[in-house]
């Protein structure tokens, strides 16, 4: 039964995500982590924000140009991402900052 619930939950996640993607971009080009597909590895194009300290902080975690990143899931409007060998939860504003190739 639990498995069933899990499946429903993850299905729901993926569909809502796809809907989001199509509304933002018809060609499904992914600009930033906000639009990323779950479970797919992307390469970071750049990290752009006026908050230089945040950009530097992300750098120390290994989140910078050329590095791989995977979106694990979206939980309560935050994005769980895998960088290097760790999981982080970031909010949508921060996910927007991480541009993908």
């Amino acid at each position: 039964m639990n498995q069933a619930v899990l499946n429903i939950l993850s299905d729901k996640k993926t569909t809502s995500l796809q809907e989001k993607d199509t509304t933002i971009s018809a060609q499904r080009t992914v600009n930033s982590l906000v639009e990323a597909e779950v479970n797919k590895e992307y390469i970071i194009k750049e990290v752009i924000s006026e908050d230089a300290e945040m950009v530097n902080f992300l750098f120390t975690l290994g989140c910078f140009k050329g590095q791989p990143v995977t979106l694990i899931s979206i939980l309560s409007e935050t994005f769980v991402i895998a960088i290097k060998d760790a999981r982080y939860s970031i909010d949508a504003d921060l996910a927007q900052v991480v541009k993908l190739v």
Partner: protein
Amino acid sequence: MKVALAGNPNSGKTTLFNAITGKVEHVGNWSGVTISKKEGQIKKNIHQSEGEIIAVDLPGAYSMSPFTSEETITRNFVHNEKPDVIINIVDSTNLSRSLFFTTQLLQLGIPVVIALNKNDLLKKKKTTIDIVQLAEKLGCPVVETTATKNSDNGLDKLIVKVLEVQDDKQTAPFDDQGVDLTDVKSVQDFDTKRFEFVKNLVNETETRQVKSSAQTKQDMADRILAHKWLGLPIFAVVMWSVFSISQTHLGPIFADILGGWIDGLYTLVESLLGDSVSPFLSALLLDGIIGGVGAVIGFLPLIMVLFFLLALLEDSGYMARVAIIMDRFFKKVGLSGKSIIPMVIGTGCAIPGIMATRTIQNVRQRRTTAMLTPFIPCGAKLPVIALFAGVFFNDAAWVGTLMYFAGIALIIFGALVVVRITGEKESRTFFILELPEYRFPSVQRAVVSTLSRAKAFIIKAGTIILLCNAAVQIMQTFNWSLQVVAEGAENTSILAGISSPFAFLLIPLGFGVWQLAAAAITGFIAKENVVGTLAVVYGITNFINVDELALVSGGSDVASIMGLTSVAALSYLVFNLFTPPCFAAIGAMNAELENKKWLWGGVAFQFGIGYVAAFVTYQVGTLMTTGSLGDGMIYGLIVCLALVAILLSFIKKGDKEEQRKSALCAA
């Protein structure tokens, strides 16, 4: 000799520190638990050296980068205090990030020993690390450790290595000579190469069978526990269970036993004193000291069970998920998800909670969190909750749960008000939190942490609470002419004289009697005093096992002695929990807020919230239960409306400020 423990957040530094020093510093399975450095002597049985070795536990850091403020304490310590050796604790399941910091530490010219920690998790993940090659390439010793294990944990081997290398000259595998350290761009270019170096090193030394970005069972668990709609109800059920076990089921069983002992002590001392001792002294000792302190200590078992359960929760990794659930709500009111960390720590004591706000970068968010953290019921408030839940609500678990959630609701409301007053409604901030892996919580660690908190509780009860109870007993025994008050004339005592004017203000809240006012006042010295003072002024020595009560106090139960309805009791509880915390916590607020306007604004806000919340609880509750209005409704309403009006005027001012700012931006 001085050894510094440095490493990434949640790599297990404090666990390792506790293991080698025998200390009991607070540990949690999430980032940012340690906020200031802690020192301790390494136990003699794990090192053979003559002299003493001091270990210094530092807050976690991801880098030594001069451009991030998170790591300031660590950076300054390593630069200024020059430890003899650095133990770099590395989470062995995350080499590719951790070794970045390692290569920076190796540049400092201080010998480094790497503790490859969480070694037990490697096997589970089917990962192997070639430590011989790793040590060779990095140019420093590498020791596998599992700091959470009691034996065969590699810690003695680690200390042996520390002693070996203390005079060594290690060569950094990667050096930043010739790099302009003041220029962000050139440092970043260089650090990109550093990450490249680490990546190659990891490729050569680590064999992973499962890619770390693959979906795991843990990720599935997250989908439920931190689910948009399920997350909050699950958290409520978890908290309710914690209270149910500690206050309804397991706690009272232990409390009954302890209560019996305290009653025994009371009877023993009473018989030892005999009739020859002056009634004043015997009352001071029996009712004031044994009775008052005993009433507080009587709640120790309930609190220990609760602390134990909270320690298990913290150890499991669940708290970081709570931060995710809360971020959505906190963000809407201008706080950061990180604000939850001080609040979780604040469940133990508000002081370290308030101090933990240091890790929040944004000044307004930091100050708002420091000012609102005391709304979360701390350990000292638990006896108060337990007393009222026990006496008026039949030990129901919903009382404590409701108080926690009311605390969270008031924090959200408070943050909303602050963001409007400061005129920063539109400002945006980022939230990022490392998600620790879930793990099966350690019963042993929870027991150790519970015992250490219990010890602190007993010490407090035996010192500050004892003194306060003695003072209360003396003040209620004498009148202003320093004569013993006659029976039936208790209203003439010094205590009654001091508390009566306050009691007058409390009539609209449903508890306008001097005894309850006195207990609320002593509560500002320490919240446990509320229980102690109530015990003294009502002559009740035991709130939990009340069979013997009729003999001592003449009433059949505590509720009738206090003369409160359940609604008024709830209102009194609300008042004590949500008015300002104890003076020590206000002192911590002062230190962290660094601004008098914020401090006094904060304290006034807490008073206002506590007053209005208690007023609403009492008046609405009375209307609902009896169909009529409570005492002093009209003039209480006037006070509350005045408070709301003041708040609105501040908000209006803030809104103008916001408009002015946006106009400025537009121009």
